[in-house]
């Protein structure tokens, strides 16, 4: 029950942030140098056509009115039409969001699968050979250009070994999965390194605490010590880092999706930026921010479940 109140409270707190985000999205199209109407039609458009567009989109009205109109559309999932594709922006987003979300969640899953065991082992064997190896690898993985790693994997598995597709999204479940392996792995490299480091340091800290010894003095198994006492405590700080990394990886999808030609929001964004398709740009900015806020909300709730000391 406490959690429900907490979620409600957090959602109320999100409203002003959402308002400012909507303002930012609204102004993107108007901050771009030049007349938005002319931008939409291209350089060669006649003045009459430009004037018609201005009238159609209400660009001649005062800004507050324009904003209200924009927001009314947003509340009905109407972000206008893509200037390039001439289809509703919302449809474009709906068809591409699943790819990006799948990529982000898969990368997150891979990161956790690597970082929890490695971080735990490093932490419990601090200073050992494996720990030092893992530390050096983490430093390395954090410092490597993601797009280069992506290309390397693509060359190796796609071009040399020819066992994984070089790009695009395959058909069927296995096809999809296969085309997600390389992008998700690339995306997860840096995150798994950061998470490993975090979990390792947390474990080092926790295993020297009295409650672990006290738990051991009860005669319970090492497995339970590990799961209930060490890892669960280590996950508290990790959850916050994880949410930051998920937000980062959402943004990173722009680079990953353009390397692996995955039809997600990231690819849509970069294409829209090159095509100066600003209705799409403003919509994706809005959507990205909302997804990040949802992730943060889930994180806060998860955190409050994990750590009972959090005050609501």
């Amino acid at each position: 029950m406490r959690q429900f109140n907490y979620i409600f409270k957090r959602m109320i707190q999100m409203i002003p942030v959402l308002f400012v985000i909507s303002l930012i999205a609204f102004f993107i199209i108007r901050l771009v140098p030049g007349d938005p109407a002319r931008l939409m039609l291209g350089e060669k458009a006649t003045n009459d056509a430009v004037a018609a567009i201005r009238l159609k989109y209400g660009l001649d009205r005062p800004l507050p009115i324009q904003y209200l109109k924009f927001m009314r559309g947003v509340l009905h999932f109407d972000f206008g039409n893509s200037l390039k594709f001439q289809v509703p922006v919302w449809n474009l987003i709906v068809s591409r969001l699943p790819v990006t979300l799948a990529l982000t969640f898969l990368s997150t899953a891979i990161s956790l699968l690597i970082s929890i065991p490695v971080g735990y082992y490093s932490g419990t064997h601090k200073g050992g050979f494996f720990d030092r190896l893992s530390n050096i690898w983490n430093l390395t993985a954090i410092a490597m250009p993601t797009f280069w790693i992506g290309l390397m994997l693509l060359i190796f598995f796609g071009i040399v070994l020819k066992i994984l597709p070089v790009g695009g999204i395959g058909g069927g479940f296995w096809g999809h999965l296969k085309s997600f392996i390389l992008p998700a792995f690339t995306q997860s490299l840096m995150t798994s390194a950061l998470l490993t480091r975090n979990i390792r340091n947390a474990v080092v800290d926790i295993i020297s605490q009295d409650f672990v010894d006290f738990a051991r003095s009860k005669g319970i198994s090492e497995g339970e010590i590990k799961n209930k006492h060490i890892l669960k405590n280590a996950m508290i700080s990790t959850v916050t880092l994880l949410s930051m990394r998920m937000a980062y990886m959402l943004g990173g999808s722009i680079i990953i999706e353009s390397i692996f030609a995955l039809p997600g929001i990231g690819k849509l964004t970069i294409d829209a930026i090159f095509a100066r398709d600003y209705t799409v740009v403003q919509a994706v900015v809005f959507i990205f921010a909302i997804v990040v806020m949802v992730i943060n909300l889930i994180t806060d709730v998860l955190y409050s479940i994990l750590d009972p000391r959090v005050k609501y």
Partner: protein
Amino acid sequence: MRKKKSSHKKVTFIVGSVIVGLVVLMAVFPRIFTKYNPIDVDVMASLSPPSLKHLFGTDNYGRDIFSRVVYGARIDLMMGVLGTVVPFFIGGIAGMLAAYYSGWFDRILIGLIDIMMAFPFTILVIVIISILGNGIINVYIALWLVGWMSYAKLVRGEVLVLKNSDYIQAARVAGFSDGRILLRHLLPNVVSAAVVYAVSDIVLCMLTGASMSFLGLGVQPPTAEWGAIMNEGKSYISYAWWITVLPGLIMAVTGVGFSLLGDGLTDYLRRKGR
């Protein structure tokens, strides 16, 4: 065991220093490393694989990749350093003042950071560049606009803790001016955490800047820059791998160099802090 650990730390620190030193040397005196001009076109030699003549091979215009990498070091290094230093000062000062005086400035700052943080980092950088237009200057501006927040948050948090510590309270009671307390008492104690972060931030800024060029948003051809070189090579990846693989390798090594150096520096600052 302790002995072993410190010697292994020393080795990584030295390796990091050597790598970073070499890259700095490339950036300052590119001529020592290569005789080729990075933008000289030689159509006869286009897409030739790595050889003694062209260490990293050539691209579709016959330009020497190795010399492009050497000359590109300056821009990538600058992106890393300038992309870090400016936010370091802006964010650090904003965070310190906000925490020390609290009140409306603090609330606005925190609100602004909360909102900005709702956007994924890369999206923010890309959108800012797309509004400002392509080009290296706009990459800098985007890095600055996004980068200061981490420093502001970090420094603000540190100052908030220290502000209520006994020695700052004592300094206040003693009637020292705010300026003196901020500069002489708070600054030295909060700066090391920010420096530690800044060292890792150099890599992040360098990688972000290069990613922008790789996407075609930052440095424009024919200027040599690591991300841009790789972007140009992307289309030839299936038969002229060297255009993307080798510059990226140099970039990865540089990043690792900074990372190792930063790790050593962090250790040193932490030990000094104790």
